[in-house]
């Protein structure tokens, strides 16, 4: 009985060296100890690790207490294998291969071999070991990975979102991939569109067009005829021409909404329109647009034409002729007679009547002029409400009933007065003695008699009608009367008309001026005729208002009174300020100093 050991080692050059040794006996000891039959130099092996002993047709494997070996791949503390089939015994890094034993043979052949996985490090390229390349993924795969990640996330995904959105009609309430492309927050007013890029960016690779804006902003007016607008542009600098050429090259038509209304500038509100925005063109508009009827306008304090209110300057039959006028010589042909000075006087008859009627010490503007509900302007004066408390149209009392002429209907007045005087018999005043006797010293009675006689001589209905429409008559006091042809009684009242707004292209709001007295702007107290134009000129405004940058109490950029997009009401900037609660009242003291 013997074991034939066949030990295989590998030289540094990779050559196999085979040594054969014979161990007589039934037992084979295996371990790191030099006394063992099979001496394994592996530090993972105990000094005396295992023992293989022949028992009949099998080989019994016993392992030192607490250790294991791998017997045909199974980790065991003890086991056996059949001689006829052989088997593998692995201890540490060594493999002991027991070859099958032929029947009747007395020798067991054992291959001993070190399995040298993980031992190749000496052979590795030392230079590479020192480089980071040995522990990091290559730069090229990293570059590809990152680039593809960015392309997928920042190009493919948003583009897909765009085409997905074309297929669907509903609004988008949550994050969409193409928001990654947003160049900044939308303005506060457009914040609700932030998930819906295609609300403005309609076609890919086409810049935002005005049509996209107009789909919501339906009633915004342009500023002027586009051709005149183009001609009015200031001469372009070299840089300006370059910009224009750049825009042309990229198919960006000039004059689009977004040229001024720049978006993606942060969650801000629309900024106040700077004065320069207007002054660039209007500062010397007349030079480039010779046929313009607009005066040059830049800084309000320095360059601004005087106001040219639209006033009724004449009549074409019943139709008033509105003309824009300016200067102190301007007159208004509104058809009324009304001396403001007389009414506002503190000492005249009007003041006395005001005291008698309990209106006040004298008449005040507010007694006749009432503001409109929004306070910006004043309601038209209404005769029945504003004049009639003094200028009564009552002409007779029948029983307890006061008979009043109907205002605004001359034909009715003629009929009414005519009828009244046609059937009137004046009762003889009791103070008059019966006819005939005159007593000396009864002068009042004489005067009464004279008046009664004059009355009794009866002007007649025609004369009464004429009196109403003639100097001293109720209508004539205030109205221009068109006299009828001789023999006719068809008196007519000249129509009365005032423009709805005197200054139509500039905004004026009385409310912020409430701290001022009316007379500080309107020279009513010195006006003796209704034809006086009481609209103040620009000099009055300039007392307080300067340009955008001014030492005057009120800095006034163009947009305080004018809108770029013509609109009848308050300018857009003022409306926005009001909505945001930004309008601050100017302290009255500051205004007085400025004035």
């Amino acid at each position, binding site marked *: 009985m013997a074991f034939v050991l066949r030990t295989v080692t590998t030289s540094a050059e990779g050559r196999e060296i085979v040594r054969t040794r014979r161990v007589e006996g039934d037992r084979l000891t295996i371990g790191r100890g030099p006394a063992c039959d099979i001496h394994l130099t592996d530090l993972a092996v105990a000094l005396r690790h295992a023992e293989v002993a022949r028992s009949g047709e099998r080989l019994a494997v016993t392992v030192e207490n607490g250790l294991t070996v791998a017997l045909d791949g199974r980790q065991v503390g003890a086991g056996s294998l059949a001689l006829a089939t052989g088997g593998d015994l692995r201890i540490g890094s060594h493999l002991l291969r027991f070859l099958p034993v032929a029947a009747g043979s007395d020798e067991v052949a054992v291959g001993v071999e070190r399995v040298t996985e993980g031992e190749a490090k000496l052979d590795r390229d030392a230079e590479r070991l020192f480089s980071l390349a040995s522990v990091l993924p290559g730069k090229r795969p*990293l570059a590809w990975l990152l680039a593809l990640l960015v392309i997928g996330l920042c190009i493919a995904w948003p583009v897909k979102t765009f085409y997905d959105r074309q297929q669907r009609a509903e609004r988008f309430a949550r994050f969409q991939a193409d928001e990654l492309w947003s*160049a900044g927050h939308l303005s506060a007013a457009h914040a609700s569109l932030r998930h819906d890029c295609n609300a403005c960016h309609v076609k890919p690779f086409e810049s935002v067009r005005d049509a996209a804006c107009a789909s919501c902003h339906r009633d915004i007016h342009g500023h002027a005829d586009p051709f005149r607008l183009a001609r009015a542009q200031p001469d372009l600098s070299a840089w300006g021409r370059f910009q224009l050429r750049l825009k042309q090259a990229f198919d960006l038509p000039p004059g689009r909404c977004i040229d001024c209304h720049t978006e993606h500038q942060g969650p801000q509100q629309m900024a106040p329109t700077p004065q320069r925005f207007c002054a660039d063109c209007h500062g010397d508009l007349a030079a480039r647009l010779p046929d313009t009827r607009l005066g040059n306008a830049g800084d309000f304090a320095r360059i601004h034409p005087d106001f040219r209110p639209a006033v009724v300057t004449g009549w074409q039959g019943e139709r008033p002729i509105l003309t824009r006028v300016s200067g102190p010589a301007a007159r208004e042909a509104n058809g009324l007679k009304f001396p403001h000075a007389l009414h506002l006087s503190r000492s005249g008859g009007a003041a006395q009547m005001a005291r008698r009627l309990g209106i006040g010490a004298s008449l005040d503007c507010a007694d006749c002029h009432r503001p409109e509900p929004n306070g910006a302007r004043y309601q038209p004066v209404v005769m029945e409400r504003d004049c009639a408390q003094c200028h009564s149209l009552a002409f007779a009392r029948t029983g307890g009933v006061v008979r009043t002429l109907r205002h605004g209907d001359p034909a009715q007045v003629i009929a009414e007065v005519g009828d009244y005087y046609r059937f009137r018999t004046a009762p003889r005043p009791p103070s008059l003695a019966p006819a005939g006797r005159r007593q000396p010293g009864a002068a009042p009675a004489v005067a009464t008699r004279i008046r009664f006689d004059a009355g009794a001589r009866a002007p007649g209905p025609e004369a009464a009608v004429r009196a109403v429409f003639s100097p001293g008559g109720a209508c004539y006091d205030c109205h221009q009367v068109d006299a009828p042809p001789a023999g006719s009684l068809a008196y007519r009242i000249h129509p009365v008309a005032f423009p709805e707004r005197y200054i139509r292209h500039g905004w004026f709001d009385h409310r912020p001026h409430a701290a001022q007295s009316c007379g500080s702007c309107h020279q009513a107290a010195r006006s003796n005729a209704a034809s006086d134009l009481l609209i103040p000129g620009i000099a009055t405004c300039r007392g307080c208002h300067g340009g955008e940058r001014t030492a005057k109490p009120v800095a006034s950029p163009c947009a305080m009174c004018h809108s770029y997009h013509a609109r009848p009401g308050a300018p857009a900037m003022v409306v926005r300020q009001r909505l945001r609660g930004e309008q601050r009242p100017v302290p009255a003291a500051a205004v007085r100093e400025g004035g």
Partner: protein
Amino acid sequence: MATRQIPRTTLGEGASHEGFLRHKRFRWAKLALLLCAAAVAGYALIDAPPRHYGGTAFGYVLGTVATLLILWLTLLGLRKRAMTPGRWSLKGWTSAHVWLGLSLTVLATLHSGLRFGPDVHTLAWGLMMAVILSGLYGIAVYAALPPALGDSRAEMTRPQMVDALAKLDVQLEAAAQPLALADAAVVRKALAEDPFAAGLLRRLSGSDARSATRRAIVALAPAGDAALLAVLERKVAALGQIRRHLRIRALLEVWLYVHVPLTFALLAALAAHILSVFFYW
């Protein structure tokens, strides 16, 4: 080694080395500075209501210049593979790469109008800044570290260092043969200690806190096998030398693992930036 320790100032004029930064008396540095000054002046003087951003005419100009610069800077990767002398030498090219690359921090930042947000535009800007910063780091370590790299080799070549370690392992294994299994396990761990197995962070830190060889010394010192301990001490020294060398190599190389891959991420982000601007114009 010998020439390395001679101070540069003692070299003659003809032998003095002009680095890529000083190339042609800072020709490219001056050009880059001029470019930045022009951009800043344009930003300050050109009026762009309501404010500067990438979409104004000046913004387009800055963006175009910056894009062309980035593409050209990327070409260094191709250019460096062909070393040529002369007017457009690789050194001149590298000098221009560094200085013009630095000028991008100004150009692209002005192009942004100093506005940043969670979008592709800021992503492109951020990647660009990361690439430039990593490049700055690269210049700094290339200026500072190569002498230390040479010193850390202690007159050995790199294969010699690996070889020395392997020989120590053989000696260690032989010296440990008499040990009991428990002690042998400690030595096996020391044998298995491979300084090259350290990942990026441990290479950068040069830390040997987990050194199995050091632990083996502590564990086996009471037994007092002087021969074995001597071998272990020598292995600790060899490992330390390799670790120092590895650390400097890692410090020298790591920026390229940021610089190059991020450059390509930047190119992708730049493509996304430009596409997005014109897609949603």
